């Protein structure tokens, strides 16, 4: 059997609040907030191993690490993030097998910017599309760049779970939303636009928004929050839902801010 959830399994997509332990299984989707005040989910990853978590827990993950490090890992990249939001949709055996298979392949195709000295984080990362090959002189792929959401989407897609409808148009965002969501990228872009400090930019391998997939407007990146709004629909009452199309860029928050609900 494949993809049909068992009625006895638990499905949870929620914020991690309080000290009551929650057992989260491997390949569950883990989200980390940009800060402690808003519910803007800035980063997504795949849980490495089954573990117990509580509020504030930092857990090992497999992920496309954000190029400028997350709020809980100041100044450096690592393979652990704070689990602020988690989605464990009770993957069945076939889905888990598919994901283990996916990971073995991806580890050979994706570079390890965290453990390998000399690589520049923006060369591995892309905002849009969610994944893209870096092509050689002969138009052949050398390695793949991913967004953090893209790596999760790709993993689940291999297991037959379409979290996001990739053929649909994502909600449009403007400069203000981009700067609020990715303040450090906005700062680098400012330096890039003024043609200042190439040495500084080269430390990150930053080559402008166009290189990250935001060349021409409208910009329609896939925000991490969209994943959790999609995964929230998975429950014991239904078979795997169809791919999700977010309606508004406010869905980058999970849950939606009160104003958006009214």
């Amino acid at each position, binding site marked *: 059997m494949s993809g049909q959830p068992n009625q006895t399994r638990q499905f949870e997509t929620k914020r991690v609040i309080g000290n009551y332990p929650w057992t989260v299984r491997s390949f569950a989707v883990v989200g980390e907030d940009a800060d402690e005040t808003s519910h803007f989910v800035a980063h997504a990853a795949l849980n490495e191993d089954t573990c117990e978590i509580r509020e504030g827990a930092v857990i090992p993950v497999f992920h496309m690490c954000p190029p400028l490090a997350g709020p809980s890992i100041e100044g450096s990249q690592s393979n652990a993030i704070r689990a602020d939001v988690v989605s464990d949709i009770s993957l069945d055996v076939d889905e888990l097998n598919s994901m283990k298979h996916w990971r073995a392949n991806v580890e050979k195709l994706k570079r390890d910017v965290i453990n390998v000295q000399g690589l520049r984080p923006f060369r591995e990362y892309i905002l849009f599309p969610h994944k893209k090959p870096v092509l050689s002189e002969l138009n*052949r792929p050398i390695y793949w760049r991913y967004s953090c959401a893209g790596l999760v989407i790709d993993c689940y897609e291999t297991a037959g779970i379409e979290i996001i409808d990739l053929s649909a148009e994502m909600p449009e965002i403007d400069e203000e939303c981009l700067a609020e969501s990715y303040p450090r990228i906005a700062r680098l872009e400012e330096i890039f636009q003024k043609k200042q400090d190439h040495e500084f930019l080269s430390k990150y391998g930053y080559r402008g928004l166009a290189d990250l997939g935001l060349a021409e407007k409208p910009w329609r990146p896939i925000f991490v929050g969209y994943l959790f709004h999609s995964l929230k629909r998975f429950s014991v009452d239904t078979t795997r839902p169809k791919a999700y199309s977010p309606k508004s860029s406010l869905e980058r928050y999970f849950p939606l801010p009160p104003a958006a609900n009214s």
Partner: protein
Amino acid sequence: MTTSKKSQAVDYDNEIDLESVFERLMPDGSKNLQAICDYLYFGKGMQFAKPAHSVIYEKSPQDGKRFFAFDEENNLLHGRVDGVYPHDAQSEYPSCVIATNSRPFPQSQVAPARFVFLNEKLPVIQRATALMDLVHSDSALATDHILELLRSTTMDEKWIPYVVYAAEELRFANPTDQDLVWKRLLNIAFEFRNRNEAAFERVVFSAIRRVASLLPEDQASELLPLLENTGSVDTRLVGLHAIKTVFSVFPSKDNCNRLLANRVNELAIKFIDRDVLIPGENTAIAEASVVALACLKSDQLKPRLEQVARLRLGWFSKILRRSLTQVADQWDQSAAIAKQSIHELTTFLE
């Protein structure tokens, strides 16, 4: 040391090509390069002077010649020279330059990465890190030097990871350079997969990926040794991926790469087995070997697909069907027959 000595130029045998360094740093600075000397004292007044090393300065006899040097923490300094003093055999003092008005190098002017990379007196790791900066800030210079390093038969081993990663980032327009790159990187992969050090695993994978991105289709058999699990680093999966990459635009011509196809088929037969098909690297090898047979247009593809179908592993069949379809869809339109053939064969997996 005394400051009363008369200033005069010094000629030393240079260990590095300072002229090219200086030219790159100061394209407007003519060829008035002096030389390197052992010490530079900088600071306000000799009593506060600090030593620096790797000093280069202009040959111009006038006062105020420009210099570059590194302080004890290897920060790049620049400034104007006040006086140059030769080594005095009668005294205890080494050669030196006095510069009372030196300052750290401003980032906005000349890229220090160039200087650091070109300064052969600095440790390789420091220079290699600068090289990775150059890849993004001055790719022409980085490309020249990567090719130079790859041509060298005596490259310091510490350079290897950086050369491999830089080669992934840089593009080599000249076919002769492309040949050099894939041949040298393949040798690096062969050599370093035998090293029992975890740090080399990623280097080997990167090298193989870059080889596959440049290797001519008619030389795909060069990948054959990668399909043997003989080293500390198991290169079979990345080797199979490499075959897929080589034939990602056009499939193999008929009856080419027969030896390679035979080995791929051996792997496929072994790994498409319920006792071996453990989700992870093993299933990935099974999938990649079948995909490689498709790329090589092997007549063994059909029997292997039948073998997969007999397993009745729905999830694996589904993944394999998708991979084969993606590979065929990416082929050039001129490979229409091969595309059609793959689409027909995947019906075995339904």
